[in-house]
């Protein structure tokens, strides 16, 4: 994926009319569905508060809860690994797959494995990763990257998918682009793969410290196949996925499907604990992934981003995401959550990360829908304040504030702006008082809209004339 500043990438994506139409239709549908099913739940708001509090409890007690999870999982027969960063996690997983002499692995859709670039690492070691989530499979067959957390192929429509299957899926012969036909073809292709697989790789939506259990929430049943058929199962789990107690899970299983797919209940929820002899995988490896999370948990404002349960409700309501699409964010996590998570996890100075906190109007629609009440606008502003800034802008901002802090300077500035713009006012009169074309840097403004001009009399001059000189 080419990495470029958000504004440049977004402008390129905006020019793609097909992409805009696909995205606009898809996000509007999910967003309306979500609004309907959330409105049905009388205790939605207190539930969001509880969920946020549970996640904050996890962040406050991360080390202790990780130790409790590990002890419980090991007691149930799992092997637990700790990975500091992406390279470390990839090395652990690759080593485990090689230990089983497997040439391929089946995968359940997982953001954590995308975050660490596991597929690329496996391929480099000669192992073929096979995505089994339909949308992930589409993206993989197209040699593309996902553009949405939950609906990775949201930027494709069904005729584009049919054409892709015809080109890349062995044995595909269908001529219809009915969703059922396309899904049926994918199912047949995947069924053969499941039965032959020796190793599966998954993530987890939740990890219960009390019992050592992992929880996976999915819609297609491909997860069930991966979790039960192969002999070896490797789970890559971000440390923030913990929940302290099994009883905490209830709220989250109500919040997640309504927020993400707009469904009342999730179709396939798998909860598994360790190894059961003679039933399911006989080797369970859990790789607990840090990759910057402990660091983020130290930031009193930014840490709330770690509450995220990857529902993608914030993407679906974001007016910027809807127009720019997921690829413009240049990171594994797109949309509002990506704009606050990527700079924190991979560094605010890292190329495109610099521009992500600015990829928002701070309209607040994301905060309103987030099931764990992450104040995304607040974190965006926090990252803007702590991140790198252009020199010229910094100078302009401090000059402006210096002028504004003194009433004489401010009044003089208002008068200077007024007389300085007097000639412009003559030109502007033609357009009803606004300026159609301004020089750089205001040309960025007038490219899309007229600019207002300083008023002939400022408010404070009016006040002085009408209220103080009588």
């Amino acid at each position: 994926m080419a990495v470029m500043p958000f504004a440049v990438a977004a402008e390129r994506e905006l020019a793609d009319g097909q992409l805009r139409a696909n995205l606009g239709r898809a996000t509007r549908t999910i967003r309306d569905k979500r609004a309907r099913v959330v409105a049905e739940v009388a205790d939605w708001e207190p539930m969001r508060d509880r969920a946020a509090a549970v996640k904050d409890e996890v962040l406050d007690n991360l080390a202790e809860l990780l130790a409790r999870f590990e002890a419980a999982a090991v007691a149930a027969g799992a092997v637990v690994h700790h990975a500091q960063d992406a390279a470390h996690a990839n090395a652990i997983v690759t080593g485990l797959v090689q230990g089983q002499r497997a040439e391929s692995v089946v995968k359940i859709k997982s953001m954590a494995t995308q975050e660490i670039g596991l597929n690329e690492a496996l391929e480099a070691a000669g192992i073929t990763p096979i995505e089994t989530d339909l949308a992930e499979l589409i993206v993989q067959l197209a040699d593309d990257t996902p553009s949405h957390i939950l609906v990775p192929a949201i930027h494709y429509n069904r005729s584009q998918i049919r054409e892709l299957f015809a080109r890349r899926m062995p044995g595909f012969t269908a001529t219809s682009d009915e969703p059922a036909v396309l899904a049926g073809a994918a199912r047949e292709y995947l069924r053969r793969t499941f039965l032959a697989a020796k190793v599966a790789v998954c993530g987890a939506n939740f990890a219960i410290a009390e019992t050592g259990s992992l929880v996976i929430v999915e819609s297609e049943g491909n997860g069930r196949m991966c979790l039960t058929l192969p002999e070896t199962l490797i789970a890559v789990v971000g440390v923030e996925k913990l929940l302290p107690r099994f009883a905490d899970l209830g709220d989250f299983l109500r919040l997640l499907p309504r927020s993400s797919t707009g469904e009342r209940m999730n179709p396939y929820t798998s909860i598994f604990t360790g190894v059961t002899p003679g039933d399911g995988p006989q080797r369970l490896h859990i790789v607990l992934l840090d990759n910057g999370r402990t660091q983020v948990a130290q930031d009193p404002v930014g840490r709330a981003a770690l509450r995220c349960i990857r529902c993608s409700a914030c993407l679906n309501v974001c007016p910027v995401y809807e127009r720019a699409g997921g690829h413009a964010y240049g990171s594994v996590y797109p949309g509002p959550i990506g704009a606050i998570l990527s700079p924190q996890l991979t560094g605010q100075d890292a190329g495109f990360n610099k521009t992500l906190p600015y990829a928002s109007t701070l309209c607040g629609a994301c905060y309103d829908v987030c099931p764990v009440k992450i104040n995304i606008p607040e974190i965006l502003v926090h990252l803007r304040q702590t991140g790198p800034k252009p020199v010229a802008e910094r100078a302009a901002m401090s000059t402006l504030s210096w002028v504004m802090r003194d009433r004489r300077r401010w009044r003089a500035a208002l008068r200077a702006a007024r007389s300085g713009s007097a000639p412009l006012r003559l030109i502007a009169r033609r357009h009803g008082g606004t300026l159609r074309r301004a020089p750089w840097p205001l040309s960025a403004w007038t490219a899309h809209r007229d600019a207002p001009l300083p008023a002939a009399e400022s408010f404070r001059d009016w006040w002085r004339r009408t209220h103080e000189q009588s």
Partner: protein
Amino acid sequence: MRIALFVTCLNDALFPQAGIATVALLERLGHTVAFPAAQSCCGQMHANTGYAAPARQLERLTEAAFAGHDVIVSPSGSCVAHLRAHTALPAYELSELLVDVLGVTDVGATFPHRVTYHPTCHGLRALRLGDRPATLLRAVKGLDLIDLPEPEQCCGFGGTFALKNAAVSGAMLADKIANAESTGAEYLAAADNSCLAHIGGGLARHPRAPKPIHYAEILAATGALS
């Protein structure tokens, strides 16, 4: 009641009519308006663009300018939201002052025009103004309030977002303008001249689109505008 006006830097310099209308309206309702001259900017633009230190200085300056005032009104939803989050000042957005503090919904205005109202993000989600502005507008004599489609959609302004992400901002603006045009209204009203500068700048390029107006000017009006 004695009410202190925080006019905001943007209105002071570019859109004094909103401040003048607020003063005229409150005086017509029998109140005394004060204008502490030491005020300038609440710091919102600095804070949101990433400059915490100058923002803090401007917040402190605003606090000092309004010290001792029990009721402060501002015709700007986003500035009130900023003051509420970063200072202890008793600041009210105009519709909050009228409906919640003064208990009026009919301010005795006349404005015989078709009007549509854009709620703005800060009014909608930071201040939760709800139907206060619409209630006030519906009581205006002669005014025909027409619903704006997709009212909750951001107009694409977002302060420096409009410059830093000009293309996306322009695309959002285009959708807002199309919705405004579809109402057939003569005026598009809002509670924030920052959003209105952006939307109005776009509307100016569409001859048949509604004209932008701050809703304070409607509430202050006593007859038709030419």
